[in-house]
């Protein structure tokens, strides 16, 4: 049960920060997402995001900064293992499931469904 409470609080807070940025600065959602992924990479690299993942679990990994965190963590892990080439293989490997699923399911759903007319 504690899992769910912490996931809710951590995940909710990350979204809250994004919402405040959107309201206060008129940044478009696309820009927010780019900033958040990049922030996740940087925070992941310097070890700041790790405690959030320990605490919030899915609350920290499901939001986009978690995607950045996985990218950074993967790159570092593979550099440890394989040297410099790991910088290129690690990030995409760690996030491969999300990226591949997004491309595959995204394509399938776009074929199956049509946009709903906005009213």
């Amino acid at each position, binding site marked *: 049960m504690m899992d769910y409470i912490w996931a809710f609080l951590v995940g909710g807070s990350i979204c809250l920060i994004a919402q405040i940025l959107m309201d206060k600065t008129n940044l478009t959602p696309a820009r927010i997402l780019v900033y958040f992924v990049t922030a996740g990479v940087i925070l992941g690299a310097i070890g700041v995001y790790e405690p959030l993942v320990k605490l919030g679990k899915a609350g920290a990994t499901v939001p986009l900064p978690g995607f950045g965190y996985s990218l950074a963590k993967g790159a570092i892990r593979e550099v440890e293992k394989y040297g410099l080439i790991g910088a290129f293989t690690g990030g995409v490997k760690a996030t491969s*499931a999300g990226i591949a699923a*997004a491309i595959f399911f995204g394509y399938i759903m776009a074929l199956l469904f049509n946009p709903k007319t906005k009213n």
Partner: protein
Amino acid sequence: MEKRKENEIKNIYQQLVQKKVPQSSLIKDAIFAFVVGGLICDVGQFFMNLFLSFGISKDDVGYYVATVMVFLGAFLTGLGVYDNIGKYAGAGSIVPITGFANSIVSPAMEYKREGYIFGVGSKMFVIAGPILVYGISSSIIVGIIYYLVKMLAR
């Protein structure tokens, strides 16, 4: 004289804009974003616990959660449900990985009539593309820096 009139018109215009722009209150937006974002993460937590109970290792469970959440985001976008949530949730539905899936399906559906290669295939990445470009590139830089630091520390 001309200048004065212009300023007056500008003033009136500004007042009209103020009236017309929906007054989204920061507090309300923030609460919705927090609650919806939190709930989406709880759905992720549910699947994480579920897959862990199936005996999937802690290292691999992220792959499963990401795949399921992306599927849900894409499917609900196709059904038109996700965008309805998004009207209220704002960042709460944009920032989770389901929002990443949403950002792929929405333009892909929208541009279907431009064909399957340059419509669906390329418009999928209108928003997801920049995310991948900046995310992956910065992770490569992180890897290179880590490598250099490790070399120097030796």
